[in-house]
């Protein structure tokens, strides 16, 4: 009986393909929007997770000045120096490492090739704090750090651009009129969360950088890596105390530096995506409502058109419930047809969007199942009224209708 009804519904949809498709547009758009957004959103948040891992987890970033968040740290506030780093390292507990960074754009030269890149002065903690892995070679030794030796570790982009297939270890790289020996090169990390190439980098011991590149002793930012994520806020407070004391900031006076929790920043970014998804969800809901009304409208038309047919069915002994079921199934099949179309279009859009936005494409089966169920539900809700109208027709009146 149910199968007969479904077949009947299909044939009545086939009879009016164009009308059915136009009716379904609302549902197609609604479901498609939801599927596309959720799938893209999933991909984006997966990417954020990956970036979190890439950044090094549980990281605090210390910058001079009460600057707002952003890459450029140009500020009038006093810069940090090597002793601040030492003080943090000695006074903080539960940390994996403390790494200073001083950074500058410079042209690196090897043989006839050159490449503009970022030159970073730091210590050997930096590699662990930033979660870098060495492809080959080693990091700076303590004596090289102390002596400010002319050694460097290079990122994957530099290896590729300047050395190609050649082994860079032991080669000398020139930065301006200073040259250093490559003692290690790092595995690729890819783009940062903010879209820059993290692998375009040359890393020097901090002292070497200060003397040979910068000509000052400033430290731009200090990264602190905390072992246990639950410890982050405690370490943040401790670091604040250490730095306030070192910079002689009297109680009541504001910090002239900022400590930020990177995890928090990315969480904020992720929640922005969530808000966006929610907003589009609301648009989709309106679209689904319009789609549902479309279905109700077309079902009412269908009931009117087929009054005589309903009369015949009632005369030969169809129960109210059976006529109701027939039209309800028809509405549900119609809505599901729209739902499936919407799911297909949504997934297509998400796949295209993922490629453009460079995020992974992960379709969530649960969301697809939910979209399917919601479509069916719309069919039931908006199909009920027309179906009831059909079921309650007076067979004599219905048969008289032409």
């Amino acid at each position, binding site marked *: 009986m149910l199968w007969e009804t479904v077949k009947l519904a299909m*044939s009545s949809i086939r009879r009016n393909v164009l009308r059915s498709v136009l009716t379904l547009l609302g549902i197609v758009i609604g479901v498609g929007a939801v599927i596309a957004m959720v799938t893209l959103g999933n991909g984006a948040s997966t990417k954020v997770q990956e970036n979190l891992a890439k950044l090094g987890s549980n990281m605090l970033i210390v910058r001079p000045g009460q600057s707002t968040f952003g890459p450029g740290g140009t500020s009038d506030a006093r810069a940090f120096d090597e002793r601040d780093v030492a003080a943090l390292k000695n006074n903080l507990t539960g940390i994996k490492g403390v790494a200073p960074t001083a950074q500058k754009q410079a042209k690196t030269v090897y043989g006839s090739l050159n490449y503009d890149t970022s030159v970073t002065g730091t210590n050997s903690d930096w590699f662990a704090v930033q979660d870098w892995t060495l492809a080959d070679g080693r990091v700076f030794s303590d004596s090289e750090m102390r002596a400010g030796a002319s050694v460097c570790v290079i990122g994957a982009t530099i290896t590729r651009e300047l050395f190609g297939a050649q082994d860079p270890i032991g080669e000398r790289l020139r930065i301006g009129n200073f040259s250093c020996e490559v003692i290690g090169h790092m595995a690729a990390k890819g783009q940062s969360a903010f879209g820059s190439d993290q692998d375009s980098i040359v890393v020097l011991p901090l002292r070497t950088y200060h003397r040979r590149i910068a000509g000052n002793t400033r430290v731009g930012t200090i990264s602190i890596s905390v072992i246990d994520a639950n410890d982050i806020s405690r370490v943040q407070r401790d670091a604040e105390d250490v730095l306030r004391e070192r910079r002689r900031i009297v109680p009541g006076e504001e910090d002239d530096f900022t400590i930020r929790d990177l995890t928090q920043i990315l969480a904020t970014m992720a929640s922005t995506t969530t808000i966006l998804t929610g907003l589009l969800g609301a648009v989709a809901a309106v679209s689904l409502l319009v789609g549902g009304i479309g279905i109700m409208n077309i079902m009412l038309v269908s009931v009117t058109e087929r009054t005589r047919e309903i*009369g015949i069915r009632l*005369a030969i002994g169809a129960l109210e419930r*059976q006529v109701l079921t027939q039209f309800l199934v028809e509405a549900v099949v119609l809505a599901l047809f729209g739902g499936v179309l919407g799911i297909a279009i949504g997934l297509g859009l998400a796949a295209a969007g993922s490629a453009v936005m460079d995020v992974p494409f992960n379709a969530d089966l649960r969301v697809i199942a939910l979209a399917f169920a919601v479509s069916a539900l719309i069919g039931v809700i908006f199909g009920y009224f027309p179906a009831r109208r059909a079921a309650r027709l007076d067979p004599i009146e219905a048969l008289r209708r032409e």
Partner: protein
Amino acid sequence: MSGQAPLVSFTSVTRSYGEGGGLVRALAGVDLDINRGEFIAIMGPSGSGKSTAMNIIGCLDRPTSGSFRFLGVEVNGLTQDQRALLRRNFIGFVFQGFNLLNRTTAIENVELPLIYRGMARHERRERAMEALHLVGLADRENHTPGELSGGQQQRVAIARAIVTDPLLLLADEPTGNLDTQRSQEIMELIARLNEERGITVVMVTHEPDMAAHAHRIIHFVDGRIASDQQKAAA
């Protein structure tokens, strides 16, 4: 439902439509018994109440006053669904306009009442084929009504009406849309069903030639029975 009770029984049945000044009395007090196995023709000018009487016999309509019993059951107190069950189990309808479902094949049309009975597919198919065979259309099972002549369409409609083995076949001007030749064939078919299968037939017609096939002819005038003649030879 006692065996002695007439199949259909009217007692002072009236049926009016509208109210106040626009009140129309389609039936103005009808007493009538129809027994099993009868072949009745109902005649009368239009507006005489014969269609209304047919609708009441077919449990599609209910009297305004008086009592209408089907198999001894008072139909006035039944819900629409209960009346649908009576129609489904005991009554077959044949209409002047055939009233087949247009886009479905002959066999699917014949199967329709069985679908509502919830009969299994292969049994349904078998019985529908039997019914089509009986009306001489076994080779037209997959034709849609549009591909069949008027006479053939009416045969499909008759097959649909009898596929459930009804006690009562109600035919509302079954030959009204057919030429003389087809009309005679349809009448012979109906008469045969009455004779061989014992199906009670009540037929509305305004053609005396068609009414001549019946054993009893009832004339309606102005909502009342004007004459009720039993033919001597059955």
